[in-house]
């Protein structure tokens, strides 16, 4: 009977390690700032950073979180169609975004608001996309930040293609492809990694493992740590504490430098946690337990940097108060700008489909205008 029971446990638990996935020891996790805000060293990743830069990173993190909170509220007030919150992933995004150099190109998913911020994209240009006013209003070339890609994983192919282009142009730049843990199950992502590896393309795959593909936990996506997968494609993989902005910055910088030098791609798994819902249409309480969230709150990316800055005296209360005030100003500007966005003309939807208008679309546009003109009264 006892033997049978022991056997049972193995039978009913088909996924290895499924019992304790979230906060285990992570011997391979690159960390430069502990959850308690202690600076630690790593043999492979060093980071020389000035006090001014540290304060700048804190400001980035805090302002991005404030923007995200305002956007979530605006959606709940009927001002946005939907919002994909980045709560909890600020350090992964800001760290990766600040690692980019002049001339590097980023390929985001639809959640990379923190990277958009580091590329100087006006938050209102992101808001207009989620309000349905336009398809994203920033200039991808001027900002070196591609438009948001909603199709899961498709941007990894775009990034790889772009990187192969850089290679053929002889440019000393790299592409940074963002993806989530769920995207690693997509065919596109695997294709992109094979091409990138085969041609040693200057591309870095930056995967934010936020533990859930909507409601599907990471245990249902991979039986091995995600960064181990890189080995199968033939390039290095590294797991970094995604809630440690300094470690993310150091690891991403190193990977981009290697790509620019011709050493080929790197896969970075930023181990983090989506503290909010997948999007405002999702209810995470239906598939995860409150205790899990509480554990991750202890590893909050902003709290640990604040603790570090306070403890070392790099920043004092005045600095934090000023950043909070700046955040409220930013939120007010975003709120005002969002609710006042004018409705676009219906004909705009025909204008940006192709670089040059096709006869079919031109005809459809005419029919559309004629149809609306067929009603009495003012348009």
């Amino acid at each position: 009977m006892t033997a049978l029971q022991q056997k049972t446990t193995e039978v009913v638990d088909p996924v290895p390690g499924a019992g304790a996935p979230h906060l285990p020891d992570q011997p391979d996790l690159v960390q430069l700032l502990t959850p308690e805000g202690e600076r630690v060293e790593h043999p492979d990743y060093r980071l020389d950073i000035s006090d001014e830069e540290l304060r700048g990173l804190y400001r980035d993190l805090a302002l991005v979180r404030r923007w995200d909170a305002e956007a979530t509220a605006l959606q709940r007030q009927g001002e946005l169609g939907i919002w994909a919150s980045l709560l909890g992933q600020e350090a992964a995004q800001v760290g990766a975004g600040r690692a980019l150099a002049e001339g590097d190109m980023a390929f985001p998913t639809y959640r990379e608001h923190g990277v958009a911020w580091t590329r100087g994209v006006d938050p209102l240009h992101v808001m207009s996309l989620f309000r349905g006013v336009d398809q994203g209003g920033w200039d991808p070339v001027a900002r070196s930040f591609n438009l948001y890609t909603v199709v899961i994983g498709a941007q990894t192919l775009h990034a790889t293609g772009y990187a192969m282009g850089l290679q053929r142009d002889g440019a000393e730049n790299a592409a940074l492809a963002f993806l989530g843990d769920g995207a690693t199950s997509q065919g596109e992502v695997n294709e992109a990694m094979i091409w990138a590896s085969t041609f040693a393309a200057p591309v870095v795959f930056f995967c934010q493992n936020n533990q859930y593909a909507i409601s599907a936990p990471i245990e249902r996506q991979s039986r091995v740590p995600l960064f181990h997968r890189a080995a199968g494609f033939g390039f290095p993989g590294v797991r970094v504490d995604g809630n440690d902005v300094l470690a993310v910055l150091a690891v991403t910088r190193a990977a981009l430098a290697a790509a620019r030098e011709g050493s080929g791609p790197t896969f970075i798994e930023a181990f983090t946690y989506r503290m909010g819902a997948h999007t405002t249409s999702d209810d995470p309480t239906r598939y995860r337990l409150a205790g899990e969230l509480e554990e991750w709150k202890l590893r909050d990316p902003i709290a640990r940097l604040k603790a570090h800055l306070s403890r070392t005296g790099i920043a004092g209360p005045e600095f934090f108060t000023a950043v909070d005030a700046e955040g409220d100003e930013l939120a007010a500007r975003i709120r005002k700008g969002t609710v006042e966005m004018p409705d676009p003309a219906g004909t705009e939807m025909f204008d940006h489909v192709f670089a040059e208008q096709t006869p079919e679309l031109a005809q459809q546009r005419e029919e559309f205008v004629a149809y609306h003109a067929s009603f009495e009264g003012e348009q």
Partner: protein
Amino acid sequence: MAELRQFKLPDVGEGLTEGEILSWLVAVGDTVTVNQPLCEVETAKAAVELPSPFAGTVTELLFDAGTTVDVGAPIITIDVGGGAAPAADAPAAEGTGSGLIGETNANGRTAVLVGYGPRSTEAKRRPRRGQPVEAAAARATAPQVLPEADYGSGGDRPPLLATAPDARVKPVRHGGLEAARAAEAAAARRPADPAASASSDTAGRGALRPLAKPPVRKYAKELGIDLTTVRGTGEGGVITRADVDAALAPPAEPQVGATGDTRIPIKGVRKHTAAAMVASAFTAPHVTEFLTIDMTRTMKLRERLSARPELAGVKVSPLLFVAKALLLAAKRHPMVNSSWDEAAQEIVVHGAVNLGIAAATPRGLIVPNIKDAGRLSLAELAGALSELTETARAGKTQPADMTGGTITITNVGVFGVDTGTPILNPGESAILAFGAVREMPWVHKGKVVPRQVTQLALSFDHRIVDGELGSRFLADVGALLHDPGTALTF
């Protein structure tokens, strides 16, 4: 100076048409700030808090908690001018055209693009130029997508997707559920005159391009068929290839008229339940056995035990004794508490009894379970049962509470039903249905007397449980309920 603003229920998911106000977090007279939570709303997708878009004083809550409200309906009035004002002033604030969110402009459209219905007034749709009134009226009867999406909660406005009189067409557009309701109402109002609807159909078809997929258009073109003469039977009135073929063929006998069937999309808990039931019914060969018992003694014991201090404060229900009897019997027959593992080609005999209780909840049927119920005392079991049912009724059962069950009780008796043939909860080997306890004539000590009688039905997976084992198990449960004293022998 009072300056009143109304906050309309937004679409907090994608394409939701209504939400239930679970609770108000503010009261009339409260001062609120921008983004302060006003209320909690539950939609088909999630329960969320709605933050205030205004700073000011709450002057009126327009719906009680517990009310289901259409998206676009104002739910709260807030005075943003700093002065208190009676609620009756609220309509005066409408239509001032100040361009603020949620207010209407002079042209009857709100200043927002998303979330609300774009229209909040009784403004009439602009008529088409040079179109006879009859034809315009007839358009509403033909399957068609009307221009200017209208997702709001207005009164007599034409529905977004008007359907043919049979109203069987499944709504397919954003906001479709509400549109479908409006369409059904519109169809009900129209006289059921086939000739009239036929003629209006024709008139209506002339007004719009018929709906068909490109390959079907090409097919019709090749056959020389004018699609405006073809009646679409596909979803949303779309013309299918079969419709084109039918248009070629000689007219068939007229179809029997539709009788107002309602088509409900299969999704959510219903879909999950259906999949689980089908999987169970067609995987595990079910056998069901029945037993009618006199449980008068148990009912008397229940009265006595209810008075005991250790059971004060917990609900001592008949179900509690059935659960206890099942747990005792399962200890004697562990094989009923087992699973069939097809992949491993093994039978898993569970060490603990995780006792599932089928519960009807507002979200549908769920089966939360009490972990390791066999180790609980009667008082602990009673407490666990109450907690489990209350949590389930409140819709707060965690996924973990619904997995790992090993055996289940379904209490059909609460519905006044005698018995049934329960379907196994997938992965389990036995399920016990507990019927209503009734006063029935019963032979007791040689005489026919009224006794408290109930029926038990046990379904089991015949791959694991043979008839003998199932019968012994059911008999043991029955014996324990007939004479609870036999528990001493277990």
